[in-house]
């Protein structure tokens, strides 16, 4: 989809993306020639249709906005299944000192981020369960290799 400024026949540019708010995002376009601007406000169906492509909407300079729309598509289902989603988040964010939370080394986090978002929570669940059983305090690359050897025949 492209937008054309009807005042001066210039292609408009996406300047910002705001939201999501109850499934709606605001995409703010402006004309660099005559400064005309407008906001396209999507409904949840439109937002969902585009995010189903697995892409980011809007300027990539806003990581929080992108993260809100590109989180694991199975969050709800996994929570119902008892997968610890906070532990999964902990693997992405800097490790906290919270009880029962295992620290992930930067290299291990990097490897985790190389797999699809929809697999990560389940992978973290399996890895951390294994590590706790073994009494490990930290997940590093060696632990990842060990878990893989254990599970992947």
């Amino acid at each position: 989809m492209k937008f054309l400024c009807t005042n001066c026949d210039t292609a408009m540019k996406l300047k910002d993306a705001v939201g999501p708010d109850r499934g709606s995002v605001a995409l703010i376009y402006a004309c660099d020639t005559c400064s005309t601007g407008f906001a396209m406000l999507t409904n949840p169906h439109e937002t969902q249709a585009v995010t189903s492509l697995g892409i980011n909407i809007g300027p990539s300079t806003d990581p929080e906005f992108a993260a809100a729309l590109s989180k694991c598509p199975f969050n709800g289902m996994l929570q119902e299944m008892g997968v610890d989603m906070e532990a999964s988040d902990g693997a992405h964010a800097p490790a906290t000192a919270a009880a029962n939370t295992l620290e992930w080394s930067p290299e291990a986090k990097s490897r985790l981020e190389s797999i699809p978002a929809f697999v990560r929570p389940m992978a973290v669940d399996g890895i951390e369960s294994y590590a706790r059983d073994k009494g490990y305090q930290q997940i590093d690359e060696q632990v990842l290799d060990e878990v893989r050897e254990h599970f992947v025949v």
Partner: protein
Amino acid sequence: MKTYYDIAGDGGSNILDQVSAQRDAIERNLDRVDAIVAVGSGKGGVGKSTVTLQLSRAMAARGLSCAVLDADLNGPSQAHLAGLEGVPLLPGRSGLAMPRTSDGIGVVSLGSAIPVTRDLEFDSLAEGSSQTWRATREFTLFGELLATVEWGSLDVLLIDLPPGAERTFQFAEFLGPRATFVLVTVPSALSHGVVARSVAALHRAGSEILGFVNNMSGYYCADCDEVRPLFPVSREVELGIPLLGAVPFDPVLAECCDRGESSSGLESRPAVEELDRIAEAVLSKITIRPADTVASASLKEGVQP
């Protein structure tokens, strides 16, 4: 006034570039996969998944490196058939590690991750309208698997397709000209009729069909060592594609598959012998490249942004 085609770029949404980058990632990750064989039908319950895994076993027994990707995201069965249920999908060195069966076949299936008591439930910003986005979401997920699994150097990647002639067509478009197709039917007129629609869909997509497997072509009775009829044989619908082989139903093989066990030791049974002949026929129709060559066909040829 300018038209859509007068304007270069998309003003910053970058959607087409992102979709193109996804296709590039798939293509790069499949660079060392020699042949992609998609096993479909259109009809459900004809044994696509069993045939797929057994073909991979027959190919592996010839020393080929094979993997199976379960594209039936809503009814994944490969993890169960391969004995890999409950084996988590884990990070490898640079992507998703490929679980392997005890006989060395890579099997990637959402059945490894989602228990059979759950349906595949996507989060949605638009409750009650999944018909508008669900297929797109599923293909995105399928593409992510293609792009991130550590396939390594494979001779054959077999893809177990979900039922539905229209789905077969969609996968043909998504996979592009690199993928060839094997269709599975049972001998009934009903099944042949549905599979004929898939043949038509694949012709429309311009895909190469290697042939079809007549599965459950009879019942193998071990007591009398005979194959007896199981379904009324259809003579009404000609599929117009080569018959690769006819596999009799074998309760011993079926039990073995249902337990997720290897069919090792069953090589002399008629069904397994026939599957072996079918694998040979498939291999005679595809090209396994020498190790030092690179992909010549492009998945991107199938992209219609």
